[in-house]
């Protein structure tokens, strides 16, 4: 590595031997590596340690890898994520790529290939940073979303709805982003919890309902008859950006 500062890599992998093997090799390449054994600690470490790249397994105890990926992508679009998974089926790869993964390697993989891909992803990241496109602060970027008469600015967390201007909290913004990036797709309370909160056992599904009540108050002309944030009986919720044309 040419950089004086070591690049940080977070490995989220529950198989101890694989995790340690990855850590060993990446450290020998000159990276600073931390291992997280499950999705929950993975998300926590990602927040507190702010790595430059994430190596992610799909089959994880607790929150699965794809939910971890979606959760991270809600807050950070840029951080390179490489999936290492035993799932070789194309639909898993497509799913991963659709949720915003940068690279997908199937197990068993070749060590050399893995290291080269990691190196490449990090090099590309450093180009962005050199060009000043890094926006390293939070990676949210300029991101304005409109639906109906509503407007949400995800970079300033300010929304405009029928009630006027609203200052959104981080958690609200995260959940909103999940909805607006998945229009027309039913989202179960369970998935919302997993992705939005990194599902901890203490959080109940009622929490999700409370947020929906708030969103309806912010963005619906008539919160009692919602057109954007609709309930799906015994499933969860679905968001429609243009209710008329669905």
């Amino acid at each position, binding site marked *: 590595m040419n950089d004086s500062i070591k690049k940080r890599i977070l490995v989220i992998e529950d198989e101890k031997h694989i995790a340690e*093997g990855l850590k060993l090799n990446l450290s020998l390449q000159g990276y600073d590596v931390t291992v997280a054994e499950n999705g929950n600690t993975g998300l926590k470490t990602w927040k507190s340690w702010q790595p430059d790249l994430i190596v992610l397994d799909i*089959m*994880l105890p607790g929150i699965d890898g794809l939910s971890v990926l979606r959760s991270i992508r809600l807050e950070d679009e840029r951080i390179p994520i490489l999936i290492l998974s035993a799932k070789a089926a194309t639909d898993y790869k497509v799913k991963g790529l659709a949720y915003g993964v940068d690279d997908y390697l199937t197990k068993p*993989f070749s*060590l050399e290939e893995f290291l080269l891909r990691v190196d490449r992803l990090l090099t590309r990241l450093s180009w962005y940073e050199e060009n000043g496109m890094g926006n390293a602060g939070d990676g949210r970027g300029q991101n304005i979303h409109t639906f109906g008469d509503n407007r949400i600015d995800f970079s300033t967390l300010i929304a405009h709805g029928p009630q006027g201007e609203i200052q959104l909290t981080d958690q609200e913004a995260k959940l909103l982003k999940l909805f607006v990036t998945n229009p027309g797709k039913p989202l179960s309370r369970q998935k919302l919890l997993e992705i939005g909160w990194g599902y901890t056992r203490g959080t109940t599904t009622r929490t999700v309902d409370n947020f929906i009540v708030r969103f309806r108050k912010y963005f619906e002309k008539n919160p009692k008859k919602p057109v954007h944030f609709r309930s799906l009986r015994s499933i969860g919720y679905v968001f429609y950006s243009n209710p008329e044309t669905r």
Partner: protein
Amino acid sequence: MTRSGWLFHPILILIFSILALGTSLFLYIYWYIEASTGLKSLVKRFNIDAGQVLESQTWVVILVLSILVGIIFMGIFIIFVYNVKTLQLYRLQHNFINSFTHELKTPVTALKLYLETFAKHELSREDQLKYIQYMLYDTGRLSDDINRILNLAQIESKSYGGELETHHLENAINRFLKNNSRYFQHCRISVSNPAGNAYLYLINPSLFNMLLMNILTNAVKYNNSKLPEIEISFEEKGKKLYISFKDNGIGIDKTEKKKIFKKFYQVGSSDDMSARGSGLGLYLVEHIARIHKGRIMMDSPGLGKGSTFTLILPLKYSL
């Protein structure tokens, strides 16, 4: 499912064919009665003396038709049930293949990773030994997986007993724990035999070990406690010997209790990646218990409250 897919749903097809069959039976009888009344009036008009023969035949014909339709109905129903069962098995097998490939790929991945590391880097002797231990463990894991599949066919045939030897069960368990201590390094396992009797049984040692391995590794694998604990105890009840394995693991939901011994069954689903393992372990355990003329029972007070597996053997079965 596609929008037109529901048209081909087996239950709908069953309902349609039963309706069609019922209607056709009704129409048969209706037309038959129509025809015979027509015939009767004809007979009357021309004063032919055959009325009684006709009348007695009507009911015979209706009866025969109903029986035939009944048989066809039964046939359709049986085919339906078989179809549903095959579909279930197919789904379970799909589950099995999905998660078993994961089970097989994981040790292979680790082995490949370390071998390539060894080829690439000069590691210290100490590190080498550490990683060689890992590789040995993974090789063991791989060969266990392979054995499980290979043994499956043999164990499924009921006659399989292999070579039976007389063993002191308590000692057999203790020996097993000693030989396989590497699997149970971070947990506490206790064996108690309050009655103090020596239980001598004819067992197939390798199968018996497989049974212990499956129950004990499950207790450790499905366990979120800081220190997994397993209490193994012997108890005599009536004419039976109860060997129970009580753990402090994640327990199991009541609805899943009966299903866990089914072939390929796994708690959770392979699609959301919550299922782990092969779905064969407990199926094998049950078969091994049967080979030893015993049975296996599972009880759990609920999710998160641990579970108890009990091997029930006839008391003083041998010697």
